[in-house]
C-alpha cells in the first residue's frame, strides 16, 4: 500500500502567503494520495483556490487522489461562491478524508 502524504497549512491563507501556499502544494512521494489538511485554516481567499486548482490538476495528471479537509465555514462558503463546489473532494474531518483516499487507492 502506498503512503498517503499530508500537506498541512494553518491560519489565514491569503495574498501575503501566496508563495508559501504555492511551495507547500507540491507532489512529493504522494503515490497513495494527498490529504490537504486545511482544518485549522481560519480564513482563505482566491489565492488559495487558484493554487488548489493548480495542484489538483497536477495530481490528476499523475493519477494521484487528493482530499481536502476544511474546518472553517468561511473557507467552505468561499469554494461555493467561486463556483468550485464540484472541483475538489472536500471533507470536514480528517478521518473521512483518509477513508476516501484509501478507497481511491484501491479503486
Amino acid at each position, binding site marked *: 500500500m502506498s503512503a498517503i502524504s499530508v500537506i498541512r497549512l494553518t491560519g489565514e491563507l491569503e495574498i501575503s502567503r501566496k508563495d508559501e501556499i504555492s511551495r507547500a502544494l507540491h507532489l512529493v512521494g504522494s503515490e497513495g494520495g494527498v490529504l490537504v489538511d486545511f482544518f485549522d485554516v481560519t480564513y482563505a481567499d482566491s489565492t488559495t483556490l487558484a493554487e488548489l486548482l493548480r495542484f489538483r490538476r497536477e495530481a490528476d495528471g499523475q493519477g494521484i487522489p487528493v482530499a481536502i479537509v476544511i474546518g472553517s465555514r468561511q473557507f467552505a462558503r*468561499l469554494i461555493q461562491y*467561486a463556483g468550485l463546489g464540484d472541483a475538489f473532494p472536500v471533507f470536514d474531518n480528517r478521518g473521512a478524508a483518509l477513508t476516501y483516499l484509501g478507497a481511491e487507492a484501491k479503486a
Partner: protein
Amino acid sequence: MLGTSHLRLNCLARPESAKPIRHAVAAFLAVFELDPDFADDVLTATGEALANAIEHAYAGRDPADIEVHAAYEDQVKLSVDVWDRGDFIERERQPNRGFGIRIVQAIASDVRIETNGGTRVHMEFLPPTVTGG
C-alpha cells in the same frame, strides 16, 4: 444606534497590508454584532477586492495607496469601497485565476466598479433580517 458609522483606512498596496486591513474591518463589523456568517462573507468580499488591488493596481511600479471605506447605514445597509489610483486592466480569465470578482458578486447585493482615475470597487451588503421576538 441609528445613523451611519464609518471606517476609513489607508495602506500601501503591498501583500502584507491585506491582513491588518481585513482585521480592522472585522473589528468595525464586530461592533454591530452581525450574523457571524454574514460578517465573514463581507470580510471575504473585502479581502478579494483588496487582494486584487494589491496584486494588479500598481503592477510593475512602486506600490502606492489603497483606501478602504466601510459604512453601516441605519443598521440596514452595509457598504465597503476599495479603491486605488493605479491602472485598471481588463484581464482575460486564466484557467486558475479570476475568481475574486466572481466571489465578490456572489456575496454582495450590489457591486459597482468605476475606473476613472484608478479603480473603485463599491460593494453593498444586506444583513440578514432578524425575525421573531
